C-alpha cells in the first residue's frame, strides 16, 4: 500500500458513511411506501366514491374491502400486456417506465419530520418541479405511441393542461419562497413554527391546491382521461402492469402534491401538543381526502373553460398575490 491512496479511501468512507445508510434506508422505505400508498389511495377513492353515492363501495376482500386493491394488483400482474400492432413499440414501452421516475425521486427532499428526510438539497422545491414535469412527457409519449385517436387527444390535452397550470403553481409557490427566503424544504417548514403560511397566504394556498389537482389530472380537471368521451384517455391501449404503473404514478403524484402543500402552507410536521411525522402524514392524507372529495362532488369542466380558468383567472390572481407579498415584505 502506498500512502497516496489513503485520502481516497477516506473520501470513499466519507461517501459511503452514514449519509449512504440514511439514503438506502429511505430508499427501501419509499419503495415499500409508493405501491402500498397507491393501493391504499385506490381503496380510499372507491370507498369515498361509494359513500358519496350512497352505496358501500368495495366490501368483500378483507374488513370493509381494504385488501381489494392488493387483489386488484395481483389481478393486473396476471394479465396479458398487449402492444397494439400499429403502435410505436419502443415509446410504448418507455412511457410507463419513465412515468414512475418523479413518483420516487421527489421523495428525496420531502421532510416528513426534522430527521426523516432522505437528503436536504439547496434546490429542494425546484427538484420536485423539475422531476414532476417528466410525467407530462411520458403521458405524451404513451399517448402518441399508442397510435389511437383517444390516446392522442388525451395526451395532447394533458400537455396543454399541465403547462397552463404549471405557471400559477410556480407563482403561488414563489409567494411562499419570497417570505421564507429559501428553497430548502425543511427551512420553509421551520419558518412556520409559530404561524402556518396558510394564514399569511390563503390565496396562494387555494391556488396551489387547485393547480396540483389539475396537474395530477383529476376531476374537475380530468379531461385527459374523460371516460365519457375518451374511453380512458392516454392509457386506453395499456393493459396489465404497464397500466398499473400509470395509476401508481398518478396516485403517488397526488400524495406528493399534498405533501408539498403541507410543507409550503400547512406547517409541515408542526401541530398541536407535539410535532413529528404523525402530523405531516395526517395533514397530507387529509388534503388527499379533500382532492378525492372534490372529484366526486364537482362535474367536469369543458376544455375551453379549463384553459381560460388558468390563463384568465389563476395567473393574474397569483401574479397580483406575488406582487402584494413583495410590497408587504418591503413596507413592513
Amino acid at each position, binding site marked *: 500500500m502506498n500512502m497516496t491512496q489513503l485520502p481516497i479511501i477516506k473520501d470513499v468512507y*466519507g461517501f459511503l458513511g452514514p449519509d449512504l445508510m440514511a439514503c438506502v434506508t429511505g430508499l427501501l422505505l419509499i419503495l415499500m411506501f409508493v405501491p402500498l400508498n397507491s393501493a391504499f389511495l385506490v381503496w380510499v377513492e372507491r370507498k369515498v366514491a361509494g359513500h358519496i353515492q350512497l352505496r358501500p363501495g368495495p366490501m368483500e376482500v378483507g374488513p370493509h374491502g381494504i385488501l381489494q386493491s392488493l387483489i386488484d394488483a395481483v389481478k393486473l*400482474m396476471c394479465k396479458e400486456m398487449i402492444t397494439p400492432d400499429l403502435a410505436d413499440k419502443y415509446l410504448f414501452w418507455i412511457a410507463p417506465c419513465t412515468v414512475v421516475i418523479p413518483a*420516487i*425521486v421527489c421523495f428525496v427532499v420531502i421532510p416528513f419530520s426534522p430527521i426523516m428526510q*432522505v437528503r436536504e*438539497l439547496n434546490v429542494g422545491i425546484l427538484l420536485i418541479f423539475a422531476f414532476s414535469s417528466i410525467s407530462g412527457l411520458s403521458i405524451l409519449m404513451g399517448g402518441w405511441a399508442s397510435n389511437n385517436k383517444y390516446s392522442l387527444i388525451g395526451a395532447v390535452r394533458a400537455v396543454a393542461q399541465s403547462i397552463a397550470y404549471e405557471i400559477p403553481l410556480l407563482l403561488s409557490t414563489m409567494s411562499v419562497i419570497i417570505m421564507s*427566503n429559501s428553497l430548502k424544504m425543511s427551512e420553509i417548514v421551520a419558518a412556520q413554527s409559530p404561524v402556518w403560511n396558510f394564514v399569511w397566504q390563503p390565496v396562494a394556498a387555494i391556488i396551489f391546491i387547485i393547480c396540483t389537482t389539475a396537474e395530477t389530472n383529476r376531476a374537475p380537471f380530468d379531461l385527459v382521461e374523460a371516460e365519457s368521451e375518451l374511453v380512458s384517455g392516454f392509457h386506453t391501449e395499456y393493459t396489465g402492469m404497464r397500466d398499473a404503473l400509470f395509476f401508481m404514478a398518478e396516485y403517488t403524484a397526488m400524495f406528493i402534491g399534498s405533501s408539498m402543500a403541507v410543507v409550503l402552507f400547512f406547517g409541515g410536521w408542526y401541530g398541536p401538543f407535539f410535532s413529528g411525522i404523525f402530523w405531516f402524514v395526517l395533514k397530507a392524507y387529509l388534503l388527499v381526502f379533500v382532492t378525492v372529495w372534490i372529484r366526486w362532488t364537482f362535474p367536469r369542466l369543458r376544455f375551453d373553460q379549463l384553459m381560460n380558468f388558468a390563463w384568465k383567472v389563476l395567473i393574474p390572481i397569483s401574479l397580483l398575490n406575488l406582487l402584494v407579498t413583495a410590497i408587504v415584505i418591503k413596507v413592513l
Partner: protein
Amino acid sequence: MFSQMLQAGLYDFFFVFIFFIVSLALPVVMVALNSLIGPNYRGKRRGETYESGVAPIRTAWIQFGASYYLFALIFLAFDVDVLYLFPVLLSYQRGTGFAELVELFIFLFIISLAIVYAWRKGVFQWR
C-alpha cells in the same frame, strides 16, 4: 474524484442519482414479472387498435389542434421567464431599499404583457 465532487456541490445530487437509477429499475422489474406470469396469446385481432369495437380508420398520427400550439407559445413566452424569478426571490430580502421591489414590478409587468397580448389577440376565445 470524490473530493472534487464534494467541492463542486454535487455530493447531494449523488443521492438523487441513486433514487433515479432505482426508479428506472422498479418499473422494469414489475413489467418483467408481469410478462413472466401473464399469458401471451397473440391472436389475430388482439393487436388491433381499440376504438370501441369499430375498425379504426387510418392511423392517429395526423395533424390537428392549432389552438394547443398557441397555448404552448404563450407558455414559452411566460414560464421560461418566470423561472428567472427564483434567484430573485432568494436575494429579495437582502437589500434595504425599494430597488428590488421596483425591479420585480418591472419584470412582472413586462412578462405579463405576453398574456395581455394573447388576450387581446383572442387566443383564449375557443374556436
